[in-house]
Structures are given as C-alpha cells and as structure tokens.
C-alpha cells in the first residue's frame, strides 16, 4: 500500500534528527544544523554538470531533475521512479525513523528501480546521482537476482552550490549471487548531502562494497549491510577524505543474520587541516547468526594541527556461538616519525604528504576502478 507523501511531511516535523546521543561523550557526530538550515530549500531547477574528474565514465543512468536511462546491460531492466505523485513507495527496507529519512521520503523526485535477472552476468553498470542548485532527492532500488554476477557503481556527486541532496539506495542481493555494490560519494565543500544505503544479502551470496567519500559542507553517508543469508560473505572497504572546511560522518554498519555468515569491514580516513571526520561502524552479530564472523577496523589520520576526527567501531554479539569477532580503531596525527620514514626513502615533504593522502584515497580501490586520479578527489 502506498503511503501518502503528506504522512512523511508530518513525520519531518515530528521526528528528531536522531533519537539518542551517539555516545556518552559525543552527542552528535553529524552537524545537523547544516541540514536544518537547508530543509526549506526549493527544488533545484538546474543540476550539476558532470565534473571533469568523472567525465570519462559511461553512465547507464543519470539522476538529475528527472531520471535519464542511457543504457541497460543485458539481463537488466531499469525503470524510472518518482514524480510528485508517481510510483512512490520508498524506504521499503530501511524504514523512516528519523527526520532526514522522512524528509527524503517526502521530497525525493527522481529515481530508478534496477532489476537484474537470475543468473545474469551483467558486467558493470554505473548510476550517477547529481546534486543541484537547491534541493535534489534521488532514490535507487536494486533487486539483484539469484546467482547474478557483476559490479554496480553508484556515483553520488554534489557540485559547488550551497544545495542539499538526499540519496537513498536500497537493495536485495539474491542467493549465491556474486556482486559488488560500490559507492563513490564526491561532494563539493559547499553542498550538504545525506546518503543512506541499505543492502540485504542472500544465502551463500558474495558481496563486496568499496566506498570512496570526499565530504562536503556536511556529508552524512550511512550504509547498512544486512548479511541475511546462511553462509553469505560480505567484504567492505572505505576510503574517505575530509578537506579543509568539510565535515563528514561516515557510518558503515553490518548485521550478520545468517548462520555462518561472514563480514569484514575496514575503513581509512584522512582529515586535512580544517576538516572534520567521524568514521564509524557497527558490527552486529544477530541472535540467529550462529558461528558467524564479523570484523571491523577503522583508522583516521589527522594531517594537520587543525584537523579533527573520530574513529568509532562498535561490536555487538547477540549469538551464543561465534566463529570470530574483532573490532579495532585508531586515530593518529601524521607523526614526524612517519614523515621522516617516507623522506628517508627519497620523497620530499610534499610528496610524502601526497603519498599519505593518495594512499588513503586509494585504500578501498574504488578510485582505481573508476580510473579517478587520487589527488583529483581533493579538488571535487
């Protein structure tokens, strides 16, 4: 049954940005004020141009004011979603529990549903979501059939305007499928972006997810991986960079629900002088996930005296039988010792700095996949 948009409008008024403080010592890792100041923006009348750093890519879908379906890989059906009173029933998996997800459900206008047939090897497909001069909202639904194979890239770009963008993607990966669902969130330092992902994986599926994030005025990027199927394997890795003036809250959550399922999540963040980043993640092993394993490891490197950051991993175990469970986090300044070490290999100060930054940017390998020169990410 379809929910009337006015219901979501009411929820935007009623729901808080978050229900509880993030931790006893830090109330909000996201600066919600930046979103609050932009909630009344009108709909964008112009969307961003594809920036040079992405211009070499062949997009299958471009989400701007309206969805543009450029091409469909073999065995893949892509249909447009959205419109003011159109086929709107978002948040079917993730739910609407807070102000920003209600806001997205109320206002998004452009989206696609991607259906991958069973057993199809679709190669790769790239879906581009562009920001605009005011508010832009995009919604993507992925239904990936059993035993399907291929790589999906969601490129979440927001250009140099003081706009607001919401992007929600939700997907189901079928049993014994072997896919990647990768996300590049590249936001200019003027834009505020709320990105929410929710991927559920089927029995004995193998799912990988590479993340590359460069933050904006406030970028909150949360992706929840629900490893539902028995024996499902999930591996996620993230690279994120907070440039001067940028604020980011990157949250990667996993929940093992399937018996003998396996999760490995790791993230690296670099915060330049004047930037802010929270790199967070929860690894939760559910009650029914017997003999499951989950590992999460996050590290943030502060690359200047005025860089601020948090690395926050959480491990919750609800099952009595666990194969493996680890969590680790680190946060450090670039040490004189590290600079000396790199310089002793023949690199100048600037080259050592760039190597550290590009190393973190290329950690998830998504920059390589998309053929993005790592230092170009700094100039988005």
């Amino acid at each position, binding site marked *: 049954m379809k929910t009337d948009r006015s219901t979501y409008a009411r929820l935007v008024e009623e729901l808080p940005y978050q229900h509880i403080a993030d931790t006893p010592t830090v109330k909000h890792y996201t600066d919600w004020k930046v979103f609050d100041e932009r909630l009344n923006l009108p709909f964008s009348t112009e969307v961003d141009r594809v920036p040079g750093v992405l211009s070499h890519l062949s997009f299958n879908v471009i989400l701007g004011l309206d969805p543009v379906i450029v091409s469909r890989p073999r065995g893949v059906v892509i249909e447009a979603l959205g419109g003011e009173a159109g086929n709107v029933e978002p948040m079917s998996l993730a739910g609407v529990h807070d102000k920003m997800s209600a806001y997205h459900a109320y206002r998004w206008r452009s989206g696609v549903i991607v259906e991958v047939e069973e057993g199809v090897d679709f190669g790769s497909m790239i879906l581009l979501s562009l920001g605009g001069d005011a508010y832009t909202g995009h919604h993507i639904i992925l239904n990936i059939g059993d035993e399907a194979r291929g790589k999906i890239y969601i490129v979440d770009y927001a250009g140099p305007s003081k706009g607001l963008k919401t992007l929600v993607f939700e997907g189901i990966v079928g049993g014994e499928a072997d896919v990647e669902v990768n996300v590049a969130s590249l936001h200019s330092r003027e834009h505020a972006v709320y990105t929410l992902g929710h991927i559920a994986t089927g029995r004995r599926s193998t799912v990988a997810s590479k993340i590359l994030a460069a933050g904006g005025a406030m970028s909150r990027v949360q992706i929840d991986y629900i490893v539902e199927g028995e024996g499902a394997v999930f591996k996620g890795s993230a690279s994120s960079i907070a440039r001067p003036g940028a604020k980011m809250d990157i949250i990667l959550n996993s929940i093992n629900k399937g018996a003998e399922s396996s999760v490995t999540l790791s993230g690296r963040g670099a915060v330049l002088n004047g930037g802010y980043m929270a790199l967070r993640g929860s690894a939760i092993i559910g009650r029914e996930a017997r003999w499951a394993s989950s590992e999460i490891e996050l590290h943030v490197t502060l690359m200047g005296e005025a860089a601020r950051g948090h690395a926050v991993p959480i491990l919750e175990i609800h099952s009595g039988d666990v194969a493996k469970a680890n969590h680790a986090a680190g946060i*450090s300044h670039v040490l*004189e010792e590290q600079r000396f070490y790199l310089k002793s290999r023949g690199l100048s100060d600037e080259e050592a700095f*760039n190597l550290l930054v590009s190393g973190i940017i290329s950690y998830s390998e998504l920059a390589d996949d998309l053929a993005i020169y790592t230092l170009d990410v700094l100039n988005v």
Partner: protein
Amino acid sequence: MGLEVVDLTVKVRDKLVLRKVSLKVDYGTIHAVMGPNGSGKSSLAYAIMGREGYEVVEGDIRLDGESILNLETHERALKGVYIGMQDPPVVPGVKLSTLIVAATNKRRGESELTKMSDPRLVKRMQLVSSSIGLNTELLHREVNVGFSGGERKRSEILQAIMLDPKIVILDEPDSGLDIDGIKKVADYISDLKAKGKAVMLITHYARLLQHVMPDVVTVLIDGEVVARGGSKLALLVEEKGYNEVKKMYRG
C-alpha cells in the same frame, strides 16, 4: 671513498647525544657500530640521514668526500644513503608496494610517483620478497600495519634491495628474527659487501656478527667512540661486556 663522519657532535633538544664521533664506512666494507642501549647508535644513524630534531653542533658528514650536512633527508636518500630502521613506523593507507613504486619512480624521474610504469618492478619485488623470506602478500598490505617484528625487518631489507643505495645503514636488523632469519639477513649483508656497497651495521649484540665478518668495529658509549678495531673487537665485547672494553681501551 664512501661515508665519512668527522668529529660529529649532535644534540637533541638540549642534550648532547653524540660527541666528536668520527668514523669511515668505505665501499666494499662492513663497519659495525656497537654499544649498549642509549649509547647513541641510532642517533648517529638519524644524524647521518638528517632527521629533524638532530641538530649538528659541530663536525661534518661527507658522502664521497662532499658534505651532505646541508641536504634534506630526501636529498641524502636520493644521493644513495639508506637507513633500515630499528623500529620502523606504521604508515596507514600506504601499501608497501606503493611505497616501493613511489621511491623507485622518484629515482627514475617519473612525474607520477604512484603509477606503475614498469611491470617488471612488481615481479622483482615478489622475487626479492620470496628470497628474503617475506610473504609476498605483505606487499599489498599497508606499510608495517600488523607486521610482526621480523616482517618489519625483512620489509626494511626488501626496500634496501629494491632502492639499490650506495650506503646502507642497518639499525639492529637482527632484532625480532629467529636464527634462520638472522642467517638470511647475514647473507644479505655479505652480499651487499660483495657488491661494493658501504654497510654501516648497528647492533647491540654480537650474535649477528657471528654470521657476518665486519671489517671495522666501533664501540660507542654515552655518545662517544670508546674503542675501534677489527672483527675481534666484537668478540671481545661479547666476552667482556661494554664497560670492561671501555676500561681496556680508555684506561
């Protein structure tokens, strides 16, 4: 010719860590620098590499007869001086292979440091890694992150082989290694000598020197040279201890 340290006095903050130290490391020789903890062995290596905070109060450091005192660390490295650190730091985000590629590209004058311009380089990295007992999977891991003590030592040696320096300073390359590991390191050091490199081998114990025959041994205590001799000096240190050797040489 090779490396020459002349009357070198160095302070860190306000503390003198080296006093009038002089030594020569000629090409095709191994010069062992021994001393107890805190004697200034690592400070000597850092001063030679021009590490920040190691202020040269007087004296000189010369490479092939030319002073390198005014060169920055990376410039000394590019001139052919290499340090294998005793406890190398973790470098999150930078893979070991990426570091080697960048350092190699820099020496070759490539504009993009991290671009793999020569596929043979990867093959060579793998071959060398295997030959020194370093798991090749570590090439794809971040530098020293999660490496054991022995893996860190082998990684330092791998980089030394790949970068092919003229002067190789190895700071306690045997610590954290088992006997087989020590023998491999010893073989590598002997090989360096055979190739005409100048090797400065910093070591705390003489156990590595049972497998490598140094040409010259210098003993440092409290930042000063207290004894110098041939390979037999290392055996004397092992037998008598540092203080006794100091008394024997200094009276």
